[in-house]
């Protein structure tokens, strides 16, 4: 099943670039500059990548609202994507599952998202009940 990614960022150019890089890797990528109204995407997303510094709102507020809107049953991972090192170091307190570093580096983005996709799939595998003996 295709790994589905939602990316929230205020830069159209960056979003387009990320979509191009990640779509080429076979992921189903949805991009948006809208910071509200994205909760509907959570049930169908495996990973949400969120910028931190956005006009009028920060990524922590966005992830908090998305999590509360999605409820506790979601399996989605929330990753921070910022070049701000201070914010990166504090990703756990800000409500993110992890941080994707080296913002702007397509190769680093590709390999880190690949690792996150594998982590997600391994956790799904671990949750799967063992086959009957």
């Amino acid at each position, binding site marked *: 099943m295709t790994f589905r990614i939602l990316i929230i960022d205020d830069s159209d150019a960056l979003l387009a670039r990320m979509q191009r890089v990640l779509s080429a890797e076979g992921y189903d990528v949805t991009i948006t500059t809208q910071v509200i109204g994205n909760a509907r995407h959570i049930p169908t997303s495996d990973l949400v990548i969120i910028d931190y510094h956005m006009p009028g709102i920060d990524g922590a507020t966005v992830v908090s609202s998305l999590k509360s809107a999605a409820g506790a049953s979601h399996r989605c991972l929330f990753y921070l994507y910022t070049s701000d090192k201070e914010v990166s170091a504090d990703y756990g307190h800000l409500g993110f599952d992890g*941080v*994707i*570093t080296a913002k702007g580096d397509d190769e680093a983005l590709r390999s*880190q998202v*690949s*690792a996150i996709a*594998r*982590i997600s799939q391994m956790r799904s595998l671990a949750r799967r009940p063992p086959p009957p003996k």
Partner: protein
Amino acid sequence: MVATGVRRRRALYGSLGTKLVLAVVAIVALSSTLLYLVLVERERDGLLQAKQRAANKLADLFAASLSAPLDFDDTEAVGAQLEELGTDPEVTCAAVWRDGARAPLGVLHREACPELGGSDDRIDGLHTSRDGVEVIHPVIAPTGVRVGRTLIVLALRANQAAFEETRIRLLALSALPALAITALLLLLVRGQIVVPIAELAGAARRLGEGDREARVATRSNDEIGELGAAFNGMADAIAEHERQIEAATQSLRELLDNMRQAIVAFDERGAVVGAVSREARALFGEGFEAGTVGDLLYPAAPPGAARAIERQAFDEWLALAFQIPPSSWGEIARLAPRDVVLHRADAARTVEVEFRPISRDGAVVRVMMLATDVSEQRDLRKRVETQEELYERRMAAMRRLVTGGGQVFVRFLDGATQRIARSVRVLDDGGGKIHAAQVDELFRHAHTLKGEARAFALSDLEAAAERIEEELDAIRRDDPAAQRRGFAIQALYGHLAAAQAAVAEGREVFVAASPIGEAALDQITVRRADVDALLALAPQLDASGAAGLRAAQLTRRLAARPFGESTTTLADAAPTWGEEHGKKLRVEIEGRDVPVPPALARVLSPVLVHLVRNAVAHGIEAPAQREALGKPATGVVRIEATSAERGPTIVVEDDGRGLDDDAIRKQARSLGADARAAPATQLVFASGLTTLSRAGSLAGRGVGLSAVRAELAEVGYDVVLSSQPNVSTRVTLAPRKIAPRTSPARS
């Protein structure tokens, strides 16, 4: 130490030599004893029988001597006979009864005699006791009547002493051979069994300890000798087997070392185990075996670091990989990393990795990692892909613009250039400082540039505009970071220069994508009907003085079409025609913006198609032929237009095999032409002439060149053909030097 103790105890209590000695001693002792007992018994029986025979004989004689005395009741004679018997020292007791008497008539050595009783109390015969031999014998009278009974007891004491001596002698005779046999057997057992087996055991032990030369000397042909020979054969086989294993291991190592893949095996803790290949050392560095495979692939990845996510994913995978059965490996393998970037001191290396399970008893016990350094391939591919992708995207965007709105794009280029120039002036005027109003103006320019660049898919320009905005935003917010940098103005200059470069590049790509070259930058859209009407007035303008002549020239130029319009499809189509016939070629077009008179433009496109198809069919050779001739595998068809006062000259030239003079002359003769009267370059224009044996999709019907000449003649153009064997064929279209029969103005 323990083994030594065991060997010592075994030597004391359980060695084969001791057991054999005990067994031999026991067997010989038992045999000797049995022999001794048999001999003693025999001796004893012999002595007893001799004594019994003597007793019987003595009793016969004594009874015979008493026959008469008892018959005549001569008591004295009986007494005399008893006394005479008493002289025999072996007789310990003797008695005589008258037949039927209740008490003996005479007794010798009564004290030594047993209970005597009456005559009828005893039975005739021989009785042997421990002390002697007792004989009861009847006394028969000469008349034959039984008259009495005698008892004689012979003592065995003297015989007992002799028997004891004999027994001691027999004991000695039995023991000495037994000892000799025992000694002999022991020597035999030691020499033939114990020592060879001990040697065999020692050799086996040395072999087990790795001494491949451990062998035993075989001194006999018996079972022990066969055992030693078998052991030596086994040792040879083991040594040979080990040599084969060593050779195989060496071959495997050489194979591993010669593989391009670095091979590393690791256990469930990720620790590197087992031998590693030379390539692994080259890739990961010497001494990497001391670490874990996680450190190897993702070194220096603490939480929050750039590679922490990848390390976390690998660690989780490692834990999972050793929990699943080998049959499910496919599922886990797809969750493993496929490539890793190793950040080395000299450069980053991209490594493709693959993981294979090593299983035992239905469980994964180790995992083997095959790593291949693909840095060069990846870099090359990335560069090619990036360049190709960039070029294709730009060309596609530009083609859309050319066909749909080329003039709009040209206006955008001009506007963008002006905006950038204006922005530079604003910075220049500020003299190293920048005020809010200037920031606002620069923002407007950057924002407009970004929006328009996005609309025309100029990503570099968009990115440059974005950076200008970011820089301006930092200045606006009085960002300390921007202040610390202290070169915001210089950065803006840099971004503006990048934007200008992006505009210039956009212009170049636009011209490259345009079939009419730079003429596309200078085009406007007009109605063709208006141009035709204006052109119809040109002859009148010619005759109306200098201004009219100038107006007529401008009118004709206005009506002219760029040469590139006639070649629009050739650059893409011709290589495809070549591929269909196993040929490789490219088309080079020069002079795309050269104006072509409308009459020529009308016929030029099909003429060029004819000529290029001919070049592909007849001129360009197959790649193998070209390489054999020392040419590049890819042929070239060059189409060039150059301006001239009376009209453009157009050349179509290929670097193929040239004209085949002989074939052309032969074909010309078959068509009834005088092949000697004209050169091949003229004969090829004969209708129906073709050098192809059969018509194909490209050429072969022999109508192409004659049709081309006729078409061009209609518009006042001549066709001239020249050729050099194996070098080129050149077709030149030039205005005829005499006036054409039909005026171009008619078009």
